[in-house]
């Protein structure tokens, strides 16, 4: 139960409504248990000297008792179960607030699917505990107490006999429930094995087709499907026990009442009305008692789910403001300095960047080149603190970036990542993403710079066109230009483009670069590219190789150096020549 304790604060927020719910439970049960008493009296009276008038009164009493029970039962659901949805909401809200602040490192090691399953399945399991489980345990408890009290007052002996099977029933439900849960886990495992198999099959379909292995794959899948069926039937074996067991045990109680009670009636020790009442009471007790076993299982599952959720809640933000943050910093000029910076993704992985020393002055343009895996992206990710340096210092305007408020740092850094990610929203909203509110004028301006505006004008609804599944699918080049616009829109002091022209044709790229030059006059730009054409006009070009700065200088200097840069340069000249051939 320790993990579920974390929910205390959520319950506390809804204390009042829950207390009302408990009160309603009490009242509703009073109505429910009153009804059999009326029946008892009616039947007893009928055997002696009832009048039609009395019968009408009994009838009205029954209806009234049930009305009270019903109205309050309605109110119970409207309080306790509704609270469970409130708490679910709060919990999910907190979950999301937390997730958003986790560092990139966390997302690199966790799949989206995994997080999604926590957000849906685990939160759902916890809600099941808060709502139905709480409601039924309170209800069961109250009902059990009252009914047993009344039954004892009617006939202690009969009560004893009839209640004998009930604890067994509850225990059986609990045990079978546990057993079923285990089998269920096994089924889930098989199911996910089957899913993986299908997934792999479709991913490797070309291999399968070229080696003509379809038949074999069919057989394997068939085998797996059969195993899955067996696992399912394995569970059914236990699951099918539940219902029969339930009415066997409850039916047993009823038979005992009929038989032992009947004998007592014959002996004149008990009235027929009491037997009627007993039978109805038994009917009222069955469901709560079953629910009790069921609730135990829900609690166990909720506990396990809460444990997983708590694990996420305990993840550290790693990158956030702290007591060393200099709150007086409101703006950034754009001087960047790497001082002996080294970086690796974790302690057991090799260094990606080693001892980097580099000064980038405000207003200048620096281009970074290098082979795949040379550390270019890791390098620029350090600037908006998507990751923190693991050695050395990174300074902006002379201040260690760890001391600059994170929001100030990021508001002033426009990072266009290699993989352009757009939301399924309108173009305008996507491009205004970094702004407090959509600003069409501004977006038009920056889209001119990124050469995206021409495309947008061709879209069916211009800037209001939706992107993604429900709207249009953008090409790689359009996505890249959209991302550039989005970054420009925030008026960044530092603009970082991570290979952002790879899907843009060279002509358009030139146009963009020309306009960017004007826009970036007083800002710092960092460009990563594979193309010489992109980088050749930069104030400084850096060649990263295996995590170190291998070459540094202007285009002319580096060509003269005859190293990696020169090699890339000559190759691209050739490529261009090839491209122009027809």
């Amino acid at each position, binding site marked *: 139960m320790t993990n579920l304790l974390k929910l205390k604060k959520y319950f506390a927020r809804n204390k009042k409504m829950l207390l009302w719910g408990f009160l309603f439970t009490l009242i509703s049960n009073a109505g429910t248990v009153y009804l059999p008493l009326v029946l008892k009296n*009616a039947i007893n009276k*009928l055997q002696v000297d009832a009048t039609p008038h009395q019968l009408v009164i009994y009838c009205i009493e029954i209806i009234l008792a049930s009305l009270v029970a019903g109205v309050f039962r309605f109110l119970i659901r409207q309080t306790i179960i509704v609270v469970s949805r409130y708490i679910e909401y709060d919990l999910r809200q907190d979950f999301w607030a937390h997730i958003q602040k986790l560092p990139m490192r966390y997302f690199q090691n966790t799949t*989206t699917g995994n997080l999604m399953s926590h957000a849906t399945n685990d939160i759902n399991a916890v809600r099941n505990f808060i709502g139905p489980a709480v409601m039924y345990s309170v209800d069961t408890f109250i009902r059990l107490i009252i009914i047993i009290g009344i039954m004892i007052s009617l006939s202690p002996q009969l009560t004893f006999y009839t209640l004998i099977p009930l604890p067994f029933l509850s225990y059986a439900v609990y045990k079978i429930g546990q057993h079923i849960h285990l089998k269920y886990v096994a089924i889930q495992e098989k199911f996910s094995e089957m899913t993986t198999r299908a997934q792999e099959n479709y991913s490797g379909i070309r291999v399968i087709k070229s080696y003509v*292995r379809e038949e074999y794959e069919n057989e394997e899948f068939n085998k797996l499907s059969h195993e899955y069926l067996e696992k399912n039937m394995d569970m059914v074996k236990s699951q*099918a026990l539940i219902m029969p067991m339930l009415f066997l045990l409850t039916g047993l109680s009823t038979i005992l009442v009929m038989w032992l009670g009947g004998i007592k009636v014959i002996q004149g020790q008990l009235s027929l009305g009491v037997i009627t009442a007993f039978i109805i009471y038994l009917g009222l007790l069955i469901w709560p008692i079953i629910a009790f076993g069921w609730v135990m299982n829900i609690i166990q599952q909720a506990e396990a789910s809460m444990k997983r959720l708590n694990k996420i809640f305990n993840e550290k933000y790693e990158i956030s403001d702290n007591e060393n943050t200099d709150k007086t910093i409101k703006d950034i000029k754009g001087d960047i300095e790497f001082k002996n910076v080294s970086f690796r993704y974790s302690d057991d992985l090799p260094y990606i960047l080693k001892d980097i020393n580099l000064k980038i002055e405000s207003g200048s343009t620096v281009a970074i080149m290098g082979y795949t895996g040379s550390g270019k992206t890791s390098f620029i990710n350090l600037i908006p603190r998507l990751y923190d340096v693991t050695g050395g210092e990174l300074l902006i305007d002379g201040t260690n970036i760890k001391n600059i408020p994170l929001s100030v740092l990021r508001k002033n850094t426009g990072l266009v990542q290699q993989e352009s990610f757009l939301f399924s929203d309108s173009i305008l909203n996507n491009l205004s993403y970094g702004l407090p509110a959509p600003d069409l004028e501004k977006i038009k301006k920056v889209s001119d710079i990124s050469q995206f505006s021409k495309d947008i004008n061709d879209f069916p609804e211009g800037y209001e066109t939706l992107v993604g599944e429900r709207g249009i699918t953008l090409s790689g080049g359009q996505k890249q230009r959209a991302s550039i616009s989005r970054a420009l829109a925030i008026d960044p002091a530092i603009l970082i483009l991570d290979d952002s022209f790879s899907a843009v044709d060279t002509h358009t790229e030139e146009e963009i670069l020309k306009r960017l030059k004007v826009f970036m006059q007083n800002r710092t730009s960092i460009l990563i590219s594979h193309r010489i054409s992109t980088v050749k006009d930069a104030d400084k070009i850096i060649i990263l190789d295996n995590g170190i700065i291998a070459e540094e200088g202007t285009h002319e200097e580096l060509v003269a150096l005859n190293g990696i840069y020169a090699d890339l340069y000559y190759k691209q000249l050739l490529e261009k020549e090839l491209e122009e051939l027809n």
Partner: protein
Amino acid sequence: MPEDIKNEDEILGKAYDSKLMKRLLGYVKPYKKYVVFAILLNTLVSALGPVRPYLTKLAVDEHIVNKNYNGLAEVALLLLASLVLQALIQYFLTYFTQYLGQITILDLRVQLFAHTQKLAAKFFDKTPIGRTVTRVTNDIESLSELFSSGIVMVFSDIFIILWILGFMFFLDWRLSLVTLSVMPFLIYGTSLFRKKVRENYRDVRKHLARLNSYMQEHISGINVVQIFNKEDVELKNFAGVNEDYKKVNIQSIFYYAIFYPTVEFLSAIATGLIIWYGGGEILHHTLSIGVLFAFIQYTEMFFRPIRDLSEKYNIMQTAMASSERVFKLLDDKTFIYDPANPIPLNNVKGKIEFNNVSFAYNEPEYVLKNISFKINPGETVAIVGATGAGKTSIINLFTRFYDINKGKILLDNIDIREIQKEELRKYVSIVLQDVFLFTGTIKSNINLGNSDISDAKIVEAAKLVGADKFISELTKGYDEEVKERGSTLSVGQKQLISFARAIAYDPRILILDEATSSIDTETEILIQKAIEKLLVGRTAIVIAHRLSTIQNADKIIVLHKGEIKEMGKHQELLAQRGIYYKLYQLQYKNQEMSKKK
């Protein structure tokens, strides 16, 4: 998969569609015997519940009133017997119906999977893998309930109602009518509830899908959220989606909160009426107390199946929506068709001829134009060209992953469209540059589960390509586990395994897409040697990235923008100082330099 939730899965179709239902029932047909048996059991078991109030009536009227102890004990025994019998039958019935559901979806699933295996590469190009997986797994799964509880249990509920009615009218028809007078309200209430809940259920699904796709999207784009400092704004947006979901759920609570108490209330009214009317009859001595007793129990029994029927409705609804998606995939006919009268292949020599071949993935964007070349049996042809020249398309065509738009491809002078795909592919192996390994063992990745390829042959193949060395160094050797996508193996090792795979299948014709990724020199030498071994005695088309491969080729084809621009041997082509010469300097010259070093 969540993309899925967004579009296709958000649509919630009709709860009942006779066409779909007919098709679904077709899958139950082979198990007709089970269904009949289950329904028979149902008729029996559904009588056992309603017989008990009748027995208690006997106990009261015949034995308690007449002070007959033995009679009472007899009835108690009868009650016990009916109870035990019901429990037993119920158990087997549940087991049976579940089995029916499971076996039916198994058939459907296996059929669907086999269907997907026949779909052409084009299908997989345009359909996200996740979607196809969902069809085969989750969508089929939601049909199991329809086949198990759906079909058989509806009968059970109806039988129970019929039996209860039977007993009631047998005991006292007037009291029955009085009791049943609340029925119209119940039926009306239930159908109203069903309608409301159905609308609400659709809303709940819709908002859940939105919530999920919001989370899915923003977790995928979490970097953008963080870079643009939008955590607070997004939290508010999330609150909106979350709030909507909460609201529809609270709406749903409201309906249930009204419905259940109402049913109970109606049942209490029925009880009240029994006391009032039945009591009156007792006073007139036209009714026995035992009947009253029985009726009170019947009211209780009667309401449950009616209430449950609305639950069955939900099952139907989900099942219909899923089956629609499943059948849509099953009806997808993106096939590469085999000829009606295929020409059998005998003693394949391995002569290949491309005759004015043109090909477009999407017409009219031709990626290959008028390609013609010949390869004699046993020869190796190297295809070179810049990225996007159309090299990969050529290899996709020969095994008929795609069919060409114009021209002819001939194998031993037979048009490959005249040959059965499977037969053709038996003679051709493709080794792709992106090696795909399956979860399993090294062995199963070499023979791909083909038991005709003996262990000895596997080892022999591995030895030939030089993979034997690293494999035998693994703890379990050839039985070493291969994790998803072969994540524990290096790129070079994976390639060697795929070479061994090709050798083990001993194809007449080999199509090889050489990998470009850089590997250490030691492995590089291994791979070069392996490729030489692979090519011996086979007709081969190689998309070449290695200088050594090109130099050894009998012919080099230079592809440029979908056309063959140059053809010849290495030295001849170099001498031409054309495209090949430039490509050589761009891609292969370094290799020569490093070789000299």
